[in-house]
């Protein structure tokens, strides 16, 4: 995943909350809570970053924590909260 380009799904909106953010998917009506402010920053930065690695670096995430973050991103991908960018940069 680290070398892939991802972004927030087009039907998902992020709402800032004191503990991080709440992500709402208008299609599946699923509500997910992003409890770590770092994760919120990574997710927000995905669309503008060439790949996940870059998004993690830009958000200042310690490399030791990357596996945790990638696992979290995968879970968000499973529910279509984030989606791979296909056909070049978005």
């Amino acid at each position: 995943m680290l070398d892939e380009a991802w972004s927030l799904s087009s039907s998902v909106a992020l709402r800032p909350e004191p503990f991080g953010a709440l992500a709402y998917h208008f299609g599946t009506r699923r509500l997910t809570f992003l409890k770590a402010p770092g994760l919120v920053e990574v997710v927000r930065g995905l669309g503008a970053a060439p790949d996940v690695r870059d998004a993690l670096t830009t958000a200042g995430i310690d490399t030791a924590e990357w596996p945790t973050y990638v696992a979290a991103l995968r879970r968000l991908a499973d529910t279509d909260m984030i989606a791979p960018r296909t056909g070049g940069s978005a």
Partner: protein
Amino acid sequence: MTELDVRPSTPARPATGSLVEQFEYGLDAPICLTWELTYACNLSCVHCLSSSGRRDPRELTTGQCEAVIDELQRMQVFYVNVGGGEPTVREDFWHLLDYAVAHQVGVKFSTNGIRLTPDRAAVLARTDYVDVQVSLDGATAEVNDHVRGAGSYATAIRALDNLAEAGFEDAKVSVVVTRHNVGQLDAFKRIADDHGATLRLTRLRPSGRGADVWDELHPTAAQQRELYDWLVGAGENVLTGDPFFHLAGYGESPMPGLNLCGAGRVVCLIDPIGDVYACPFAIHDTFLAGNLLRDGGFGQVWRTSELFADLRSPQTSGACTRCQFFDSCRGGCMAAKFFTGLPLDGPDPECVRGFGETALAADDRAATIASRRPADDHSHRTAPAVRRPVPVQIGTRPGPSAPPVSACSESPLAGFTRD
């Protein structure tokens, strides 16, 4: 508001902590907002939680409703549960529905079906982000109309027919489980299946006119067992919670529900005249946070109401503090305690450990219950006005072999434990 003054002054939100702990301190906007558009209703259901019937002359105008939707969009309230009264009797209902959807506020509305004509059904079938729940409290006209009024069964079935013919996908048939209809579950399921709809079973609460009939209508302990067995057999095809959105917490196992009273924290009600209450099941001055017309808008009320500030602190819990289930129950439902005359810092009337039963039996609650009658009752004056204290009687419960389900659960099995 004296009942709420048992809470300590609001402590600061911890920087970390579980989602439930974070929820205790409230969110920047509600995630479970109910908006009752009118108190007017063509029916007079005996268990109406908002004591609806007559239109309130102070009802919000179309322009005022649009302004509320604009604000919900700004606050990123992604969807709203619309009800009433019967929301579709408002002339501008379909306009407001379109307006909300166009402003990224999805709508789930509950209706008795009175205005769901074939034409309307066709329009709804083409609209995204709209969920329709048709209320039906009996699988036969006899059982349904006894609670919801003459002709209401035929109206609901006609609405479901129209939705199905228009190709509206996955409407909900919403059933409040009562002592009278618990034996009709298979028939309800057939009605839903025949209409390409999903059956949704919910819980009877002692709110509004529901307080008057709760004792006669809430399922007995034996019926809860029947319901439990039926649900186990029915599998995942029957909804017992909120079908509109699913909660998932990052960093912890999926949450079975809120596991705390969400009132004023994540749950809220806007009533037809713009009054903002902590919870749709708590229409009473004690839980009135303000009015969005008088107090600078919904967001202002949500953020600055003293009542909400008070509610957004860890629940104090009296007898519950030492309970092994406190983490998952947190003392249960504030509204249920309030309308059954129990102290708000004690156990729920349906406490799985039986403490509620003890409290209900020990106290002379009649005076408390009388003082907790809603001031505003919009019931039709011709409706059978049963006005007596809630004669709560709760069947003996099996021992607490399992923690209670979420306090906010709409599940008709909330509080039920299989031994």
